[in-house]
């Protein structure tokens, strides 16, 4: 019979952590890219486009991430698109991340005083010039903190990929638990590793938020 030492447990968990990190980074990059496109689309002030973005946000914020993963994983293949657990996880996390980031960023743009738009208009700046020189530079500064904060949600979201069989930290945790029958130890370690990944990001986000408020 195989015996797992603490060293085996920890080294296997750390090995799996790589996949959690990789999946998080991929999902975050995917999410921000899509969210950028959607934010740009939303700023066009075209009614139909805005409705579409709104629907997108409602849809992916209003359904469980787990369902989105199931649908991406089993659903897409049933419709004839080949997709791996890794691909389904990235795809669903991208949809999920972008839906939240679009809303977060919209909030950031909306917090800028209306006077900034009006002053620009009175100086003869066009809509795009106002965006480029006045709104975006300020909005980006506001947006960094909540965006970093949301990256924590993305990391935690990757844990659900274990349910569609993607082997990352949580999955290895359940596998090891089954092999060792030491749930208390294994899940405490898993939680600890997530905490070590997420907490610095949370702290950094808070720090940015404070810094921004002070410099206002």
């Amino acid at each position, binding site marked *: 019979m195989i015996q797992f030492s603490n060293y085996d447990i920890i080294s296997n968990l750390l090995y799996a952590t790589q996949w959690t990190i990789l999946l998080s980074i991929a999902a975050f990059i995917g999410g921000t890219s899509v969210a950028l496109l959607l934010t740009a689309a939303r700023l066009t002030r075209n009614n139909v486009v805005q409705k579409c973005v709104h629907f997108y946000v409602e849809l992916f914020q209003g359904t469980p991430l787990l369902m989105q993963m199931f649908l991406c994983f089993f659903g897409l293949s049933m419709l004839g698109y080949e997709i791996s657990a890794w691909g389904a996880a990235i795809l669903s996390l991208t949809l999920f991340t972008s839906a939240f980031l679009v809303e977060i960023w919209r909030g950031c743009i909306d917090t800028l*005083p209306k*006077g*900034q738009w009006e*002053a620009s*208009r009175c*100086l003869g700046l066009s809509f795009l010039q106002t965006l480029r*020189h006045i709104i975006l*530079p*300020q909005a980006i500064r506001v947006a960094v903190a909540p965006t970093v904060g949301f990256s924590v949600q993305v990391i935690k979201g990757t844990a659900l990929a274990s349910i569609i069989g993607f082997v990352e930290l949580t999955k290895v945790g359940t596998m090891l638990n089954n092999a060792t029958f030491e749930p208390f130890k294994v899940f405490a370690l898993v939680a600890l590793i997530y905490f070590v990944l997420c907490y610095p990001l949370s702290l950094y986000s808070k720090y940015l938020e404070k810094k921004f408020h002070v410099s206002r």
Partner: protein
Amino acid sequence: MSLVNLHQVHKYYGDHHVLKGIDLDINAGEVISIIGKSGSGKSTLLRCINGLEEYQQGGITLDGNEVTTEDIQVRRLALSVGMIFQNFNLFPHMTVGENIMLAPTIVLKKSKAEAADIAKAMLEKVGLAEKFDSYPEKLSGGQQQRVAIARALAMSPKVLLCDEITSALDPELVGEVLKVLEQLAKEGMTLILVTHEMNFARDVGSRVVFMHKGKVWEQGDSKTLLSDPQTDELKQFIGAVL
């Protein structure tokens, strides 16, 4: 011909009738003080003149051109009308110099060097030459407002619209801003001010326009109007403010 002309301008916010047929003629070089109770439509009137708000009836012309809220039209208008706001609306992420140079470079397509020269000259004019590289947040309210004036002047407008530009200032800072306005008036700039500073209106202004319930209720030469109001409403208003 008059520089600014309003003819029977009506403006609604939804069902709310805010401007009820405004007629007004303003010539180049005049200093107009618009006074009136809160909610009487003073800000709305100013904002219609430079295309920030739509109006539903009547017509406004500026230098003979019709004023609308279309984007292109507003941008063209911005070349001849400057506006200064109660809360300054400086761009916080740019230095004072960059605030002033922005529109001359990207709207008027001037070179950086040229724009910088203009910015320096305008800062000189408002007495803040040494603040070129400061960020707005480091300035007092009075200084920020003077920068805002310099920013508007850098576009060499024909008219300057000022909406209660001293109301957000501590009383001891009001004077420095009014002094700048007085100087501009002396140099012949056309000014349209919404203001509560009655002394300024009387001493510097050429004409006072009293608005009440969305109408121009009474207007006339600033000294005579304020010392000898005709309508009860104006009498009451002057009584309350002075």
